[in-house]
């Protein structure tokens, strides 16, 4: 497996369950050592010293249950090489950014899961790391907390931290990432700048939803592929030389069209195309 993450970018690491995302992240954090190959940072193999500049949010969340939130953040930041004073200033800042001021003096075990997750995120970024490895940082958050985290995510990225994170919500990845790496069965099947990937995958694709849910009229077209998308909508791929308006005209004759779009495939479609085909 080989992939590169450009400095100062937000990069999504995608792949199905068991593809090797968590293992890859653990190897970057030197928790596991690769059997072969090297992991480099700015051209030199990573060491315990370079690791000090990395933040980490593990898939299995873990904090000292009996330790107060603020004290915990200070301790974990100190371990990254900061003085206690520096660590305290940074801890206070992220407690504020993540809107958990009222819990700062509470023990972690007294917090809800969502708030614990915010503390976990803070633990990964308080040291102002050059690289933050975040393993499924959004799992289990409610919509309000997701927004708070997304905002914090952008703040971290804006301050020059390279972010590598894994997620299963591809719409979120599309909204947050500039780069993506897609791995399948321990191999990279796709990587690069998301915009370029989408441009390259651009084809005659239609997203269509009919009010009456009757898509029988599509059978008159030869050469198209039809897939059921979210909530019963259809994702239609046309042959290169076909006029897409033919479909729109037939649809409006068959009933009321509630959704219609033509253009780039979504990340979800690209993902399913790459992984779905090889999944079995």
């Amino acid at each position, binding site marked *: 497996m080989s992939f590169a993450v450009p400095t100062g970018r937000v990069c999504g690491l995608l792949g199905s369950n068991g593809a090797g995302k968590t293992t890859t992240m653990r190897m970057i954090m030197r*928790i596991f050592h690769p059997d072969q190959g090297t992991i480099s940072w700015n051209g030199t193999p990573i060491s315990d010293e370079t690791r000090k500049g990395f933040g*980490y949010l*593990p898939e299995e969340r873990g*904090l*000292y249950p*009996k330790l107060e939130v603020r004290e915990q953040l200070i301790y974990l930041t100190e*371990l990254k090489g900061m003085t206690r004073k520096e660590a305290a200033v940074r801890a206070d800042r992220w407690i504020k950014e993540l809107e958990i001021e009222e819990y700062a003096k509470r023990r972690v075990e007294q917090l809800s899961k969502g708030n614990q997750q915010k503390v976990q995120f803070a633990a990964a970024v308080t040291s102002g790391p050059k690289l933050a490895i975040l393993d499924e940082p959004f799992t289990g958050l409610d919509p309000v907390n997701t927004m708070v985290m997304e905002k914090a995510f952008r703040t971290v990225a804006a301050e020059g931290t390279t972010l590598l994170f894994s997620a299963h919500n591809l719409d979120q990845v599309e909204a947050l990432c500039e780069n993506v790496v897609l791995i399948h069965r321990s191999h990279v099947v796709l990587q690069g700048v998301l915009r370029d990937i989408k441009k390259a995958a651009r084809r005659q694709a239609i997203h269509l939803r009919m009010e009456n849910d009757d898509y029988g009229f599509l059978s008159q077209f030869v050469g198209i592929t039809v897939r059921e998308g979210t909530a019963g909508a259809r994702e239609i791929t046309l042959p290169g030389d076909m006029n897409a308006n033919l479909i729109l005209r037939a649809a409006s004759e068959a009933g009321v069209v509630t959704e219609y779009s033509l253009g780039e495939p979504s990340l979800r479609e690209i993902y399913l195309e790459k992984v779905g085909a090889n999944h079995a």
Partner: protein
Amino acid sequence: MRNMWLVARREFVGRGKSGGYLITTVFMAIVLLGVTLLPTLMEGGEKSTPLNIILLDKTSSIAQPLQAAVEAMKAQPGAREVNLEVSSMDEAALIDRIKLEGEKGLLIVEGTFPAGMKARYLSTTPAILNSGSMVMGPLEAIVRAARLQARGIDPAVSQEIMQPLTTEVLQITETGEGRTSEDFMGSMMTALGVVMVVYMVVMLNGQFIFMGVLEEKVSRVVEVMAASVGPAEMLAGKVIGLGALGLIQFVVIMASWVGGNLINAQISDQPLGGVTLTGALTAFAFLVLGYVLAAALNAAAASTVSRMEDQTAVAMPVQMVQVVPYLMVMAVIMNPTGKLAEITSMIPIFSQTVMVARVLMGPVPLWQILVSIGLMAATTVLFLWGGGRIYRAALLSYGARPNLKQVLGYLRNN
């Protein structure tokens, strides 16, 4: 290195502030102080209250000489005061009175004086019964003297015959001084006290290591830690941080114990078994080595546990290993120069109690102490090496608890 100290500080502050540590330290200090002081205080308290005895003399010959003997005892320094009240009431009435008034003894003397005399001593209180010898002794002496006199022996001669014999039991030591059995008891108490405190501190802080590693693993914080701190630093920090707490605990508890004994010695004039410099240094060396060994053992064991439910199955054998040397202590302390003591004081793990007890109870050749410490140190290093390997390998693996074969596998390939 810096992170190791940070971990050590965290462990020290975190565990030191915990109720468990503070309570056990204070509790053990109070218990030891109490245990050492209480008997003397109770005895001293008893000594200061007079012993009240009612005498029912059916022979009409005992009351006077016994009263005289009791008066004579009062003149002796440090003796407990005995008040004898001669009564002529009916026996049943006197027993009722004793039942009513409590805290009193009833001495009934009957039969023909001196040849066929019989005495009974009654009380409702065990403590008063235990003090019966204070009147029964003089009573016996009076009856014997009267019997001798009846056989025509001059009272002066009989008094000479009845004179108690002075006996002394002494142990010959290398310094040539004779040690009395009281000295022996004193040093036995000292040895027992020091060994028990070493035991408690090693066990307790070893368990703190177990709990700490378990908590980190079960709460999964270990992965966050592993991303910043190497396993060796993490373990060393823990051992140092909790070890410092253990040392403070040892000093506090020993201070209370020594304090109690010093007060004891003041009150009862009993010699306290002295602790020599060699004894103190040996105890300290074994305290540190024993603790590090226990820490390595506990850390390795705890690191193989992924779920709280599994902890007892792992903790039990570890505690068994640690308890074994303390089971030897009593046998060794009763006979500190025996073959059993000499051999087990050389075997690591056993030596942490046996050698300490031996050194505190009498001179031990220096080479034996050094070899014993050397062997124990080598074993500790071995445990630290093996324990460290198991800790490093098992710390981040979750799922079913590894069996013995897998654990041995951690020792080989790591």
